């Protein structure tokens, strides 16, 4: 305290209020500056986040729609089901491309040249027959009739219809030439071209054809990985935290362990991938590119986060709770599990969810354990080959086809949505169960 009144040695005694007044303006200005700086920092951050979101959404929203042609397709019985057994296996294998091509040929009778015909056939996706097969299996009565089907368009046509191909560019510089544009325009005039909701994107695994590529495989891979990682890391992490915080003696060993846990939280994630490759795959022979090995690696990666947040949650439970429990005769174990743990649980869950969100977005360690793979089939278990969402985004971003640009952004949107949901859950949990002492 520099109160001049208690300091009789000062030659010119000044009142405290003068000193305060003299510097008041400067101090207010300082505070205003600091607030302004803070607001600018937050504002800048928001601007960049908005820019990022606008860019991703701007590029990706078109991927949720897909171009289809409405074509009358005649499914003659001798092509689709020659024996008339209606056996789903025969129906799945039947040739549906020929009826589609016949339909196109009827719509464009003037296309006679073999080369031109091939070009006409190529406006339909190679995956279109599969969609008809699914419809026929669901409703075998379609056999022998002519009905309008929505036929999936090729990715180049899809890009054209969505306006990603510049029609004014010289013909040689376009992936779609004038003749094909003419056909598409004619189909559009007849009302046969439509953009429909892209269900394939959510129900199929990946593909080399953009129009057939979906994120279901990656989503299921992420799901299995996270479920297993949660099942492993939560009990281990919470157990370790309880032991270290409540039971372990304080000595050099526990100090060393604590330092190491904090250290591990800062280790680059790729290191965990290398460890996983050497230990889980190399030594224990866990199969590569499976959710199982991914979950083991991600467990190692998230454990420090969970342990640290769980310990913080345990620390925030006041000692009076423990003392009261012990005082009425509870054993230390009962004290922990009946009283302390329930009170610390919201904090632990928040930490765990944040750790899981981090694991969901992680790519680097998974590169080492064979997750950068092309896997068409949607995984059905923990040991099926699988890939995860961020790796799928990485693979699509690296594909030359134009159609993958929008799909990459769309996959990022899905990943962001899941991250947002998880973080929201963490915030809500904290709000709902948090106790202030």
């Amino acid at each position, binding site marked *: 305290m520099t109160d001049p009144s208690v300091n009789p040695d000062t030659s010119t005694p000044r009142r405290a209020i003068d000193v305060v007044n003299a510097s008041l303006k400067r101090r207010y200005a300082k505070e205003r500056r600091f607030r302004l700086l803070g607001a600018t920092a937050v504002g800048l951050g928001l601007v960049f986040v908005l820019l990022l979101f606008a860019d991703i959404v701007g590029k990706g929203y078109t991927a949720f729609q897909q171009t289809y042609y409405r074509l009358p397709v005649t499914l003659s019985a001798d092509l689709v089901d020659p024996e008339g057994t209606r056996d789903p296996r025969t129906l799945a294998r039947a040739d549906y491309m020929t009826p589609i091509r016949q339909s196109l040929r009827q719509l464009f009778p003037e296309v006679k040249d073999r080369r031109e015909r091939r070009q006409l056939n190529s406006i339909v996706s*190679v995956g279109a027959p*599969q969609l008809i097969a699914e419809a026929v299996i669901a409703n075998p009565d379609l056999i022998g009739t002519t009905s309008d089907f929505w036929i999936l368009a090729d990715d180049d046509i899809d890009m054209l219809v969505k306006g990603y*191909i*510049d029609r004014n*560019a010289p013909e*040689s*510089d*376009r*992936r779609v030439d004038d003749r094909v544009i003419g056909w598409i325009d004619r189909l559009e005039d007849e009302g046969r071209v439509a953009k429909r909701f892209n269900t394939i994107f959510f129900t199929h695994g990946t*593909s*080399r*054809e953009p129009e057939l590529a979906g994120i279901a495989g990656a989503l299921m891979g992420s799901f299995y990985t996270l479920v*297993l990682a949660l*099942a*492993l890391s939560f*009990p281990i992490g919470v157990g370790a935290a309880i032991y270290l915080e409540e039971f372990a003696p304080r000595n050099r060993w526990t100090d060393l362990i604590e330092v190491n846990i904090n250290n591990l939280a800062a280790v680059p994630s790729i290191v965990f991938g290398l460890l996983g490759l050497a230990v889980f795959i190399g030594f224990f*022979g*866990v*199969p*590569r*590119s*499976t959710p*199982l090995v991914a979950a083991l690696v991600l467990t190692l990666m998230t454990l420090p986060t969970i342990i640290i947040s769980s310990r913080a949650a345990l620390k925030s439970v006041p000692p009076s709770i423990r003392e009261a429990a012990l005082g009425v005769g509870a054993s230390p174990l009962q004290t922990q599990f009946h009283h302390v743990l329930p009170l610390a649980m919201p904090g632990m869950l928040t930490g765990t969810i944040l750790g899981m969100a981090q694991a969901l977005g992680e790519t680097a360690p998974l590169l080492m354990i*064979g997750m*950068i*793979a*092309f*896997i*068409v*089939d949607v995984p059905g*278990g*923990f*040991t099926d*080959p699988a890939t995860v969402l961020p790796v799928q985004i990485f*693979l699509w*971003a*690296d*594909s*030359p*086809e*134009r159609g993958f*640009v929008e799909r990459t952004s769309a996959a990022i949107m899905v990943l962001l949505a899941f991250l947002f949901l998880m973080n929201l859950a963490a915030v809500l949990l904290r709000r709902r169960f948090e106790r202030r002492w």
Partner: protein
Amino acid sequence: MKKTLIAAAVTLAAASVSTQAMARDSIYIVGSSTVFPFSTAVAETFGRTTSFATPKVESTGSGGGFKLFCAGVGVDHPDITNASRRMKGSEFDKCQEAGVKEITEVKVGFDGISVANSKTAGRYDLTLRELFLALAKDIPDGKGGFMPNPNQTWHDVNPDFPENKIEVLGPPPTSGTRDAFAELAMEGGCKTFPQIKALKKEDKSKYKAVCHGIREDGAYIEAGENDNLIVQKLASNPSALGIFGFSFLDQNTDKVQGSKIEGIEPTYDTISDGSYPISRSLYFYVKNAHVGTIPGIEEYVAEFTSEKAWGPEGYLADKGLIALPDAERASIAKTAQSLTPMSKPE
């Protein structure tokens, strides 16, 4: 509740590990990221048109692929590895030591590397020597020694060129495209100097350092492994050039144009007939010991080497693979489909 969950997870994991070790019904492919787009296209068609499961294709890079492939015989090891270069003698020996005796080598086609710029600017006509002079770390100083590359603009490289700053976006050293570019383009230009050619005999490592060294003073910009990104950056920066695979040029002909190299434009035909100088061959290798144990390997090889896949009109051509000449294709298809084992490469 939690206990049962853990117990369930553990038993499930244990049970599924043991079943996995017994059999595998899908082909397992590893290897080069350059062959990855073609291999996956074949894998997908193969899965769709046959009764076999769709193969699993992992992108590990050529070297990583050989390492996994040569680790041994058995269901845990891959059946096929893709490569953007031939197998080395040392890698072949490793394979032999691990019991991988019979290997079928299949050359599948060519991959061109294009040096492209934005359509809004003029097309460059470069020689390999000019590329070397523009991008090398050290160039001959004319007195028998070497000096750090002084060239700042294309005009410095060749007086006929405009005063544009040298600004080339390309892949980082970890990329196979970069290796191939250094080997084919830089070394090709480097050899045109008699002084360096003489160096090859005297000091091989110095020769390699000079020929493969790419400048680090900002004229060559490492733009990451993502070729799409390079294309986007070129479109917004007309004065820059970019180095990337031909398939990306093929998909983006409305935005970028490939520079002529030694007077030859990168097109499907010039790469296929070998006249475009910056191109390399792509391969895959089959582990013969797995044929018969893992279902579908022969059929996969047949699919890859069928005209509808790797032919000039096939679906791989759409993906950017450049087909081999007709005669070579026919003879390779024969050795591939009969799974004739290769001898040790030099």
